[in-house]
């Protein structure tokens, strides 16, 4: 049975400790980051669509609405770079998972020298 056999090999990778760590690490970043950015983003239309709370001036003619809007830019750039720095660690975990699934002891290879 080709299907069953192939599925077993995927499971071999899935069951490595490196893959489990990868998925834990991904969830630890992506879930809170997504909830945060969606809430922060939707806060603007909810506040401007239903209230006038953001109409007050901050500096000169710059209103709180503009400050909130510019903050969305800062949030986007910040989360972008946080994601990239987490993702670089994920690349290493993917490599580890491959080696682990192939039968090598975890962490033994990259560090050990020939």
């Amino acid at each position, binding site marked *: 049975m080709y299907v069953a056999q192939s599925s077993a090999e995927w499971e071999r990778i*899935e069951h490595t400790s490196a893959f489990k760590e990868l998925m834990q690490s991904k969830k630890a970043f*992506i879930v809170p980051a*997504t909830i945060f950015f969606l809430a922060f*983003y939707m806060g603007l239309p909810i506040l*401007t669509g239903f209230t006038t709370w953001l109409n007050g001036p901050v500096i000169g003619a710059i209103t709180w609405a503009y400050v909130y809007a510019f903050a969305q830019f800062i949030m986007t750039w910040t989360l972008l770079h946080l994601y990239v720095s987490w993702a670089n660690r994920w690349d290493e975990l993917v490599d580890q*998972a491959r080696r682990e699934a192939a039968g090598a002891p975890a962490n033994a290879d990259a560090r050990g020298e020939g």
Partner: protein
Amino acid sequence: MQTDDIVALIFFVAVILLTLGVTYWAAKRNVGASSHYVAGGQITGWQNGLAISGDYLSAASFLGIAGAIALSGFSGFYLSIGYLVAYLTVLLLVAEPLRNLGKYTLADMLTTRFNARGVRAASALNTIAISTFYMIAQLVGAGALIALLLPFMPPTLSIILVGILMTVYVVAGGMVATTWIQIIKAVLLVTATIALTIAVLAQFSFNPLTVFNEVQAQAGREMVIPPPPETFGSGLDTVSLFLALVLGTAGLPHILIRFLTVPDAKTARSSIVWAVWIIGGFYLLTPIIGYGATLLVGREAIANQDPAGNVAAPQLAAALGGPAFLGFISAVAFATIVAVVAGLVISASGAFAHDFYNNVLRRGEASESEQFRAARIASAGVAIGSIILALSFQGLNVAFLVALAFGVAASANVPVILLTIFWKKFNTAGAVTGMLTGLISSVGLTFLSPNILGDAALYPLEQPPAIFSVPLGFLGCYLGTLLGGRAAEEEQRTGKQVSYEEIYVRANTGISDVEEELETAETETQTT
């Protein structure tokens, strides 16, 4: 013809010659289906980042947002925010899994999991619907714009000219030419935007705050605050627009296929970094350009030229730098339109030739050369079809069509993409039901809205109906899975669906051939 027209014409001809030169160079490298659809997957991170920016910053962004801010102030900036934050949805949830599972089209990603022609056909239908709305908008916009900037050109002739150009680019040069045209366009657009911003700021002692203060003093306080909340419906409309914008980008096929042109997920990631900085920097400057137009051109003069304010940016350029600057900005706007249209043609031709012809009709058995020929024929067909549609819809509001495309993308594509990656129990019936529910509800509600029916509207809101149609799309996926077809486990046993373990591991690691990967890893371990 006046001198001003001649200056503008010289810039236009320069842009056309440059892009045709690129196409001639790229045509030699366009040798098969893979190079036609995804440039052989050999685009680098910064190249793809610039190309994404070039694909994304359409005429609606450059001209539309500047005009909206110039005429109505803060609410025009809504689009800038939504279009940018949308990249977080793309980056955090969609880009890397899509790169890891896909091949040429969005449907390829879904059918990596579901071995069903119905899924592919429904996905191709969505791609064609979204690309068509988007493309008509660009072509109609091009016609109106060129008519305003080059008064001696009738709109019909402009639409046909843009149509012929994009056919040449895509049929001869494929994705390689399209990518480079988008890169050139992105560089031109960023240069033009920075030049305009500096020219505006120079009038206000290089202090952005002065621009805001002057707008408040001269045009009134309503220019710097959000439009007042009137009814519950108007508030809901704003929320619905924001929802369509933040989710829509993650379902736009012509943006998503750009992640298939890079060799791996790491490069996809770095291309988003480039794109988000370029796109964000661009949108951050839109208030300066918009308010600059309010102050230096005047709202009356802008609205007289075009009621939607679509030529506010070129008018500003003329006020600041005379005919030469106007010619440059106009040529950039033209390059913007052809680059976006070329990307749309590629994605729609993929849905026709790769999804419908090769995989649905020929059951995946067309030869490489048949596929390549089909791709080119489909590209020419899509281009001709959209020219005809654009000619017959010339009166339609451009911004409305673009918003419609975002609404459809958010409702019809995003639920199915997310659930294919993240939901273990998802099945074929759920995928098809979800895609069709999202498509029908988003298009249907739009056609029942005041935009089409006026006072007789059955659905009251004017913005994209995402607030209803996105949940309906998810609900369609869920109910379809629950009520229709067979359970995911049974589909996996009979080969209608690959195991979720495979999707889970592939989407998260980029490993596509497990046996080969394990062998390579084994050899590597043995040598160390």
